[in-house]
């Protein structure tokens, strides 16, 4: 679903990258390693996912495996949407 990727990329670029280095962030690059996420960054990400895709994110879901790169975010959102069906 290309729109998920576009939405996720747009969100990350506007809110964490502020438009800089946007093209440099590869799909599988860790946002933690890049220093893009601080403690509120995780909360910002979760609010974005819940608001935009109308899914709920459980506490157990809050792990870097689900949230720490654009590709992981896409896979996670797809999974959540699938579960919600």
């Amino acid at each position: 679903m290309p729109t998920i990727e576009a939405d996720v990329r747009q969100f990350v670029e506007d809110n964490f990258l502020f438009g800089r280095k946007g093209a440099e962030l590869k799909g599988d690059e860790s946002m933690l390693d890049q220093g893009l996420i601080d403690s509120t960054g995780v909360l910002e990400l979760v609010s974005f996912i819940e608001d935009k895709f109308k899914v709920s994110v459980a506490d157990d879901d809050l792990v870097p495996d689900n949230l720490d790169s654009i590709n992981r975010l896409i896979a996670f959102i797809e999974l959540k949407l699938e579960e919600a069906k």
Partner: protein
Amino acid sequence: MCGIAGIKQFDGQPVSRETLERMVVALKHRGPDSNGITLHGSVGLAHTRLSIIDLSGGIQPMSIANGELTVTFNGEIFNYVELRQELMTLGRHFTTTSDTEVLLQAYAEWGEDCVKRFNGQWAFAIWDARQQKLFASRDRLGKRPLFYSVVGKTLLFASEIKAILTHPAVPKAIDPIGLDQVFTFWSALPPRTIFRGIQQLPPSHSLSFEHGKLRVFRYWDLDFSNRFDGVSAGELEDQLLALLTDATRLRLRSDVPVGAYVSGGLDSAITAALAKDLNRERLCTFSVEFENAEFDESHYQQEVVRRLGSEHRSVRCTHDDIGRVFPEVIRHTETAILRTAPAPLFLLSRLVRESGIKVVLTGEGADEAFGGYDVFKEAKLRRFWARQPDSKSRPLLLKRLYPYMKSLQSQPAAYLKAFFQVRPHDLGSPFFSHLPRWDLTSKLKDFFTPEVLAATYDSDPITATADNLPKAFAGWDGFSQAQYLEATGLLPNYLLSSQGDRMTMANSIEGRFPFLDHRLLEFAAQLPPRLKMCGLDEKHILKQATKHLVPESIRQRTKQPYRAPDALSFFDPDAGMARFEYVDALLSPDSIRSAGLFDPDSVSKLVEKARTGAVIGTKDNMALVGILSAQLVVEQFVNGRPVEVPEAVTV
């Protein structure tokens, strides 16, 4: 407290009075009571005075020995009474009762080493006509500022940068390396400032200019090499209280009434209580309150005030209040800053001034001396965790550190681990305690333009700092190392400057800090770390020693760092707009582009985020305040355009 300025011509040309007059005008707020200029051929000294000790006799610049020694002096030598006595037994005669004359006679008697005998807060310059030498010095902790610049054949110095900038030959430009340091450590590191070609004399240093040579040298350092041995904790508590009481007693020496700040925390409660006990007069106390409950500590302030029975006044800050005074605040900080915290203190010193008080005691320094800051606990926990890196429970301890940070409380362990993780090479770093903080702050540099990044490419601010550490540093325990870094870093360069001297002097108020008496700091440096941080109980020995002075609720409360609302002071998310015109104007792509420090597109995205109330994290808030304050520095000092903000409409 006062403002000082001076000029020395290397080429022997006479100093112009007009040039000095311009410098004096720029420093008027530091000394509104009177001013003076003294010319000695190629040397000129100037002074603006806030009269506190010897109201009639302390006029400056002051000369002794038939004009052979002349001084311009900002600050206080608190032990001047004892020094005066000692100097008289050595045969020296005094014509006034001021500490200024004691300073001069002490220099006449002991030369450059005189500063080692001073207990106080000072920045001064002496013209020694006998030796044709200019001698200047700044106190041990950097409570009082001193900037200087050499342009062509002229040495200029002053209490504030704005006085130096009045000289037409001084360039008005931002130093990218200084800016890079602000975006790493929260301040430029002395001798650097964020202005190109303008230096500051580092704390604990003196400067002499003689035979055409400028020499800057250290006369004191904080040393953690020695420990009290075989002394019981109880005995050390008694010694601590005796020293702190004496430090407070000296700081009550004044010919005008002395008030006290009450933050609601432990340290100011202690200094205010000691002041109350030592002084028979009615004590006036002052506090900042916040309309935003997340930052407000008025409940605790009231408890302290009830106990003191002081005459109390407070100023209640709204988001608008902070945003409104911010341009003026930056005119006084003379640097970009990453938090708005100085602004409420500007409003507080205004309240003090309006109440007719000129001098206030504060609790500044206790956290450095006795290990009160979270950074000390954080480092302790990270070391503890690094011993068992796979432990699931150890990283969760970090949550206990920051109970006031809601976002951290909801963090899963996996993320805590990532934020506070100890990398293998960190453990051996002299900056172990401070790396997470500096790393986080450094992320703000993503907003720099390619030009600023290129100009700072070759200078790693952290590595550069390592060269300035004392030789013994590597042999100290981690806790002492962290204490040294705080006491010589953030304390002088931000807390005592942007948040201290500049905010009090902006309203002609003098701050005094009993905890920063060097005798107390030297004593505290010899205490075993476990008496300072007992388990995770910070400032343990201080709490024990002062049990009888403060309400139990204040002693027991969780420490809350002093903070103020940041992005919310400039943007109103409910209205979806900036609160003030200047915010829109200075953050506009045109202004950003013209200043050349930050990327206009990135700033626009950050502004958009702030407008919608989505700037909630530490990093984004610091970025917004850092960028806006840097823009205010450029507009007011480089472009020389005043930033006007309409007065609040009182309903």
